[in-house]
């Protein structure tokens, strides 16, 4: 596989649009960016004079902070906009909000939105580059990239690893982005969740689907736990938290089935005692805190690669 030297698109809307070479380029660049975070002065002038707008239509503390930190470390000017009190609440359409922001000529818009496809619709009308920081239940590309970075850091590779992804599959954008990424780089993936939370057609992505946690964990090198929201109990998806934890909760006993040196990941925030036991979240398998730290480096890499040149 040849390494790419640039990203083909001026947006990062989803892992679906990237090829393996571009994924590799982002991860390699993130390595160099991670080193910046180890310096006494954690700043480089690379994006000096560039304007980045963080357009968050959905609340998010950790992803927003991670992006802000990444932008500031690259010396970009950053503006944050959350929807509380903004014109969106007053009924302004998505494209009108975007056009208003465009009038301020940002170079990059980092966008999180509750509706799948919102960044794609925006990309059709915006001049700025758009980074999808999570759209509905569709994709969360920088999360999958930082997950891949963390796996590579711990395991030295991605290809050929067995990765189990467990939880509320149908409502998870982290799942979809990770499915695209892991299948593109040659990992083997098994997904697991209650039958009521498995969306149809996943087998077409070349992954194994099971409702049996033990089977999913068997020989897994990487275990990714997804968050299960309490709303699911009301939507007739699940009878109770207790039953979910019994059938699908990750405990140290369950981890015995995984491969030796297996790692446990979680995109956060965790529901301790629902999808994951505290002894696992805080235990020797867990790389959850590494994920957070790597998020800044990966986001710096994406910002850098999308920001190049005036007329790119």
């Amino acid at each position, binding site marked *: 596989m040849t390494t790419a030297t640039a990203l083909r698109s001026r947006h990062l809307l989803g892992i679906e649009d990237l090829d393996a070479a571009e994924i590799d380029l982002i991860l390699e660049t993130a390595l*160099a960016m991670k080193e910046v975070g180890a310096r006494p002065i954690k700043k480089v002038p690379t994006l*000096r004079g560039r304007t980045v707008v963080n357009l968050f239509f959905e609340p998010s503390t950790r992803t927003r902070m991670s992006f802000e930190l990444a932008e500031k470390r690259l010396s970009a000017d950053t503006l944050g906009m959350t929807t509380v009190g903004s014109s969106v609440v007053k009924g302004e359409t998505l494209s009108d909000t975007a056009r208003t922001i465009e009038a301020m000529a940002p170079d990059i818009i980092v966008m999180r939105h509750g509706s799948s496809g919102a960044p794609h619709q925006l990309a059709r009308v915006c001049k700025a580059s758009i980074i999808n920081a999570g759209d509905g239940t569709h994709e969360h590309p920088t999360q999958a990239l930082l997950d891949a970075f963390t796996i590579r850091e711990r395991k030295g590779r991605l290809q050929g690893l067995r990765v189990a992804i467990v939880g509320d599959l149908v409502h998870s954008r982290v799942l979809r982005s990770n499915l695209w990424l892991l299948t593109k780089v040659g990992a083997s993936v098994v997904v697991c969740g209650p039958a009521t939370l498995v969306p149809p057609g996943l087998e077409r992505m070349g992954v194994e689907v099971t409702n049996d946690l033990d089977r999913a964990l068997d020989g897994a090198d990487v275990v990714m736990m997804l968050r299960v929201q309490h709303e699911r109990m009301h939507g007739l998806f699940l009878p109770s938290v207790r039953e979910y934890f019994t059938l699908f909760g990750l405990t140290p006993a369950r981890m015995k089935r995984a491969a030796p040196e297996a790692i446990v990941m979680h995109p956060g925030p965790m529901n301790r005692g629902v999808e994951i036991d505290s002894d696992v979240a805080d235990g020797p398998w867990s790389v959850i805190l590494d994920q957070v730290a790597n998020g800044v480096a990966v986001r710096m890499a994406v910002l*850098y690669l999308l920001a190049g040149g*005036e*007329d790119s």
Partner: protein
Amino acid sequence: MAIVMDADRVSRSLARIAHEILERNRGVENLALVGIRARGVPLAERLAAMLRDLTGAEVQTGSLDITLYRDDLMRHAVGPQPVIRRTEIPFSIDDKLILLVDDVLYTGRTIRAALDALIDFGRPRAIQLVVLVDRGHRELPIRADYVGRNIPTSHQQSVQVRLAELDGRDEVEVEG
């Protein structure tokens, strides 16, 4: 196209520079080498080896990637972003004399970026510049302290430095 320095000439220039460094700084105490990627790095390592042979003392060596500090990066459509390679300076540079090492000195902008980067790493006592080739045409007030060879060139020409560690052989070629 002309080979203006062969392998023999390269190693004699480096040996001479090593002696000059020792003479000027009266030894290698509190002195460290930082090579600018890519070809400044093997040059720095060779100098460190020579200085060790001459003095018996280990000289700390690091490598610096200045891509993130370039001033031309965001300015014109240079096309794809340049690939970044790793910076590794595994020691404190505070109060040290840092010898920045690069293969070719041309406009001086690379060195300016390197100075910016170094200063983000700490506060050296002083910084001196070592280059294998000075080809003229400075655009900034920057000068080298140690020069392997002065090679006057025109803007149309290009200077290619090849080193055994990266290219399989030592030579300096002027094209055009």
